[in-house]
């Protein structure tokens, strides 16, 4: 992802967090850390950027209880750690930082989730990205297959040209965690659109059926809720190559959320939505209507599914008519269906019938 700040600015922004605590202590008050509320209650549509961003609601974490005081201490240790990395030109993974915190005494993390969340908190407070902090995820990006060519800077510092159809095996081109221009260049393509696919099973089915060539598209495997780098490369292909992006996922509440994070931005990363969200992405299916229209084998919604759907009804990202209708239809049906339930009509049904019909509606086939 693009560096939003130079090292000096990053350090300064981080030191402001420290300064907030120090000043409070000096005044004889309880140290605090102020950050935006990170729930759906505090995301709003940014007209200029066309994505959902955090609103103005702030929450204050103060040192009046043991738990949050420890959190402040951890933040200080993290700032020190980032300072040192910047000064020494090093970087580390989030997991490495979690283990390094073993030496932070009372400030050590008890789970990696804690350290990941705090890293995100600092990103948001300082309007930086974790790359600015020299922190990288160990999550790997997705796989891509299709007639598109990418230039990637390899470990030896040489640019390597890779065609995601001719130069790769069946598993496709693996997207690295950094997909910014200094690492990845989009060279050329001969396709009409990008299809992002939720499950590996369906991704492999389409490849086996030669769907990418027949329908002139690039296939991207999302691996469930997509990593930052996956969303970022989708956005770059969409913007730089001007290619439409369609999302093909399961027909359940969680797939809706996957689409939401691709098209509008995720709640957890709303501070960097403008880097990650592909506003023009379209949800292809499986829709609630498809379950009925194609008479798909469906499972009953669980109580957790229903809860998730109801929560989506009040999620600003799903406030438009299309989504309200889809969510309500699914609630009324009480059913959900997997992508692979299309196999009911045979292995080729998805590539011969379902996708051409759905893409036809969008004018892509």
């Amino acid at each position, binding site marked *: 992802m693009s560096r939003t700040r130079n090292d000096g600015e990053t350090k300064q922004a981080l030191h402001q967090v420290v300064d907030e605590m120090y000043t409070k202590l000096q005044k004889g008050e309880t140290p605090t850390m102020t950050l935006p509320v990170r729930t759906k209650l505090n995301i709003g549509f940014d007209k200029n950027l066309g994505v959902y961003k955090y609103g103005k609601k702030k929450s204050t974490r103060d040192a009046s209880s043991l738990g949050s005081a420890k959190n402040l201490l951890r933040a200080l240790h993290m700032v020190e750690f980032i300072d040192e990395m910047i000064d020494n030109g090093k970087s580390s993974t989030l997991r490495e930082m979690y283990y390094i915190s073993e030496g932070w005494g*009372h400030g050590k993390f008890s789970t990696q989730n804690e350290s990941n969340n705090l890293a995100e908190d600092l990103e948001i407070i300082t309007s930086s990205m974790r790359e600015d902090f020299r922190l990288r995820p160990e999550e790997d990006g997705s796989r891509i297959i299709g007639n598109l060519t990418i230039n990637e800077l390899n470990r030896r510092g040489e640019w390597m040209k890779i065609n995601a159809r001719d130069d790769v095996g069946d598993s496709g081109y693996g997207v690295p965690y950094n997909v910014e221009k200094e690492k990845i260049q989009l060279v050329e393509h001969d396709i009409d659109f990008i299809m992002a696919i939720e499950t590996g099973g369906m991704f492999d089915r389409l490849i086996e059926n030669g769907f990418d060539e027949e329908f002139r598209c690039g296939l991207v495997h999302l691996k469930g809720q997509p990593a930052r780098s996956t969303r970022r490369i989708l956005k770059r292909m969409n913007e730089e190559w001007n290619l439409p992006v369609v999302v093909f996922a399961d027909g359940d509440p969680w797939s809706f959320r996957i689409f939401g994070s691709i098209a509008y931005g995720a709640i957890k990363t709303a501070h960097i939505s403008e880097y990650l969200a592909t506003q023009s992405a379209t949800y292809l299916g499986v829709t609630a209507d498809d379950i009925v229209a194609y008479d798909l084998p469906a499972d009953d919604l669980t109580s957790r599914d229903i809860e998730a759907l109801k929560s989506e009804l009040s999620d600003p990202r799903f406030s438009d008519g299309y989504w309200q209708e889809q969510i309500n239809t699914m609630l009324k049906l009480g059913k959900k269906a997997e992508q692979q339930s299309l196999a009911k009509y045979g292995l080729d049904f998805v590539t011969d019938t379902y996708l051409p019909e759905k893409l036809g509606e969008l004018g892509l086939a």
Partner: protein
Amino acid sequence: MSIAEKMASNQKQIAISEFFEKNKHFLGFDTLPRAIITAVKEAVDNSLDACEEARILPDISIEIQRVPKAKDQLILISKDNGPGIPQKSIENVFGKLLYGSRFHAIRQSRGQQGIGITGVVMYSQLTTGKQTYVKSKIASESTAVEVKLGIDTRKNKAVKYAQERLIWSENDTIVEHGLMIKTQMKAKFQRGSQSIVQYLKMTSIVNPHANIRFKYINSDGELEINEFWKRATKSLPAPVKAIKPHPHGIHLGQLQRMLKDSDERKLTSFLRQNFSGVSTRAAKEVCKTASLSDSAKPKLLKTEQVNSLLEACSNVKFLPPPTNCLSPIEDLLIKKGLSKTIDSKFVTTLTRSPRVTSGNPYQIEVGLIYGGKMPADQQVQLLRFANRVPLMYQQGGCLLTQSISSVDWRQYGLEQAGGKGIPKGPATILVHLASTNVQFTSEAKEAVASNEDVMQEIRKALLELGRNLRRHMKKKKKMAKAQEKFDLINDILPAIAEKASTLLKKPIPDLAATISKIMNAVILEQKTWWDKDTKTTRINAKLFNYTSRARSYTILMNWPEKQGAKMIDNDRGGRKETVGLWAWKLETLQPGENTVIEFGLDNLEKGDWTETEVFYRGSAEVIGASKLDEKILEEMKIQNSNEILKEMEVEEIDETISNVASRAKVSNLTDEKLHKESYQTTLFDRGEKDE
């Protein structure tokens, strides 16, 4: 030996083998792991009983050796410092079924499990062909005697082989008196909840006056287990007295036998002489109810007359039987026993007053320990005892288990599905039933039979433990809250200040004002610990005023005054609020100030006092202490003065009138009517009326 003799002997052998085979389940030899436990049990029970009778503090050691190269063979060596057995009695003690007088007397006894030590001798001989080695020393003789014993299966009695006299010394000291048994049997050594270690551990809990050692040597000759449960008290259990049967607990056969054996000429005097709790008036009433003449000759009663006599016995009211025949362990000793054997954070115990059910006196004792290293995600461990004997089998079918299962433990902080059944949690629950007549479900004597009275009594006792546990947990929670605050201001906040200053390259700010703001409370930090060097219990309480206002308090702490503890090194002085409660009026504490109260407790042993409760008088809340409830304090004061009164009176009564009424009645009344009426009058009224 002639062929005929051999055959006869073989037949007898077969008969005895058959006897064992048929009855092994209640003899305790039905499985190989159980056989060794039964053998240990018989040996230990005998030792404890002998020591108790001879008023000797028992030192018992058990050693088990795996016999190398033999499949499932163990050698058992049991040693005690009991009175020993005179040379001429050895054959009888070890060789006769049901030897001894305990069988007929009505009093609390460990009771015979199976057929006693004879069974062990027999079992060893039958399974390995080996004789049992016995060494005995009595105080009045200068040498010990050692014999090898076998059972003559034809005559069904013990036979002595090589008998010798010798000087018995252990660790270069001559043994004054004691008994040693060594025997080899087919058996299997096991670990776990039904093991010798568990059995001895449980035995040690309910026999806190005994030193018990255990060694296990494996087939490679290595010492694999070496345990020592040290005695927690030097006072022996009070000697138990035999009592006459009570008419409410009599059975037909017993009554017939008593009538047959009686010398009395009149039925009324028979009843008065042979039963407890029968006054002249009551004896007359029985005769009237049974439509029998007062002067009917007991020996000549016909069966239907005995029947109506028995029925009358169950319908007429009598004085309760005396309960001084019971020997409870007493709650403080259970507490000691429990805390020395199981590592825990909290122990609560209770001994209820004796009660009577169908003419049998009984008494319930319970204990609960919580925390420590006990697993939190498993069922609590149950320790069941009847007359100081651990019950290790048939847990599910036992009244003691059912009583525990019937309590809704959820309200007291233990997990329990649906509010019944054995609860889950890091706890152990102990129930001891002491009675002159423990009813078991079967001859195996491993499960107590149902009895509504006893069950209710156990429940009452358990509920009280439950309440104590809940109180403890509440307190622990409060302490945890206070502890968090301390961690926050002592560790985290200074770390924040230091890190922030380093990062900004600025001086470390003063934290006092911030600390007051964060705490905004008065906090008491209290510790109770055992000081090894001085062998005293130490108590330290530190009171911090983290508010912006000056505060003044009186701090009160409980201490085990009644248990005979002595308060030492109490430099802050203070005064006695009531028995077991000391009060310190403190000077006004300014914002940010703190003060310390410290003292020691002498005359206690390690583990006697591990938790001190702290109370306060004052307007603002103190985290880490409870506000003193003045009403409860008043009640405590009244109760304490009554108890002192009671002790004085009980002594007087014991001296002047013996046998007037049971002590159970005294305790029952004092428990229930303490504040309402003087039990002394009641006691005399009853006594006079009934005499």
